[in-house]
């Protein structure tokens, strides 16, 4: 115990050390908090969309619209329209009619505010396959660029998120940032995604893309009618994907790709409505789905009308 008294005079004691450390920590923390604004703090602490109360959702939408106004100089209208009961969205694609013109790709781009360059994100990918083989996608060409399409001897297969009923991407997400809505749409909460890209590894259809950098969208081409879970402008390092134009279909409009197609290749409707177009074609045409052996139950029906 004599040690104690001797040491006190000569060298700093434990008490002094602890005092110094705690003051330093407090100073550091307070400095950190002043640099963050109130909005950033709220965004950081934001809950997952599904867990939010109606009040919280309203506040989040307000904050986001403010943020987009500041960032892009445009007034966005962010909808949080929920799914209607008795609806299960399905998509039909007529391989006999697709000519590989890619107007669906760019129609989607115009509607859904993806990054245009570095990275260029296309939710739809059109594959060119030689006639005679449709299933071995290893023989596909993604970057065909002839003078005119369709090219003789080839057929075209557009692929996008299939909105599976048994989605592997939803199962593997560690934070449940992606889930299946009641009307069958597989959506992403862009503010909850941590960017681990496990879902991209899990998707058998390359339905998901990653915002490898801050999205670059020309301000003039921004679409301001957006849905929180759909085409609102995203941020860097989060995942996004086709949402069957959730902002359109929940209001009863066709998705942008359906309207963009010049040959009427694309069909859309409610699988639970026996009078819908999609039900008619499933019943009357020969439909198949991609990679059905993986049991993902996609809702994207390919068929041949001729």
């Amino acid at each position, binding site marked *: 115990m004599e040690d104690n008294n001797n040491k006190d005079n000569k060298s700093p004691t434990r008490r002094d050390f602890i005092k110094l450390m705690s003051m330093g920590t407090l100073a550091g923390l307070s400095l950190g908090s002043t640099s963050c604004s109130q909005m950033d703090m709220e965004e950081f602490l934001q809950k997952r969309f599904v867990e939010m109360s109606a009040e919280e959702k309203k506040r989040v939408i307000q904050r986001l619209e403010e943020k987009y106004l500041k960032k892009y100089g445009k007034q966005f209208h962010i909808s949080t329209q929920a799914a209607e009961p008795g609806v299960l969205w399905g998509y039909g694609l007529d391989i006999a009619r697709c*000519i590989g013109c890619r107007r669906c790709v760019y129609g989607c781009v115009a509607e859904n505010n993806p990054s245009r360059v570095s990275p260029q994100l296309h939710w739809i990918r059109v594959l060119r396959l030689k006639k005679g083989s449709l299933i071995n996608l290893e023989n596909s060409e993604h970057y065909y*660029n002839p003078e005119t399409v369709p090219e003789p001897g080839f057929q075209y297969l557009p692929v996008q998120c299939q909105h599976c009923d048994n989605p592997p991407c939803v199962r593997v997400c560690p934070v449940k940032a992606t889930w299946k809505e009641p009307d069958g749409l597989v959506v992403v909460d862009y503010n909850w995604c941590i960017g681990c890209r496990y879902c991209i590894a899990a998707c058998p259809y390359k339905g998901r893309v990653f915002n490898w950098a801050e999205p670059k969208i020309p301000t003039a081409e921004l679409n301001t009618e957006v849905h929180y879970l759909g085409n609102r402008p995203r941020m860097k390092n989060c995942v996004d994907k086709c949402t069957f134009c959730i902002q359109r279909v929940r209001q009863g409009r066709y998705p942008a790709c359906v309207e963009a197609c*010049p040959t*009427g290749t694309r069909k859309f*409707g409610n699988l639970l409505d026996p009078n819908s*177009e999609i039900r008619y074609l499933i019943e009357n045409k020969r439909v198949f789905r991609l990679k059905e052996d993986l049991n993902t139950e996609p809702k994207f029906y390919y068929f041949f009308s001729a």
Partner: protein
Amino acid sequence: MIFRHYTASAYEWARPMKKILLFSAAIMIGIAFSASAMQQQHNEFPATSPPFSPGIFPCNACHEGLPVNAKRRELKDEHTSIKLRHAEQDRWCLDCHSATNRDKLKLADGESIDFTESYRLCGQCHGNIYRDWKAGIHGKRVGYFKGGKRTYFLCVSCHNPHDPKFKPIKPLPPPIRPELNNGR
């Protein structure tokens, strides 16, 4: 043509008048029903208007006074820009266009129809496609697919009736190859 159901209005001050009017109204309703039955309820296709070239319609502006030459031939004086490539071995102009009234088209049973209903004419030969089009799975639709705000496109909106085969078009650019972005 869209038939409207005529309703009888009651003229209180003329009973005999009322009887006559009711009777004629009943006849007209009867005609309306039978006519719409013949037309198979096609009036529920809210279709776009026919894509006429500017100034070409109404055709009777020129054809009203012209004599009718029903001989199958290649046209030399007018309409020379129309090259028929649509069953041209078996058909020519007056098989579809009504010879007596150029503002109408002609069905196989002789019925005259307006250009706004041209799908009935196409559907005579292209029955499978017609059936799919009516169900909404052939060709293009835009707008709202719920609640009747859907807009159909006429056959001729996409297919030139004289040369219907689609020409190849220039594709939009392919996606940027990922290698080009490396290390950016």
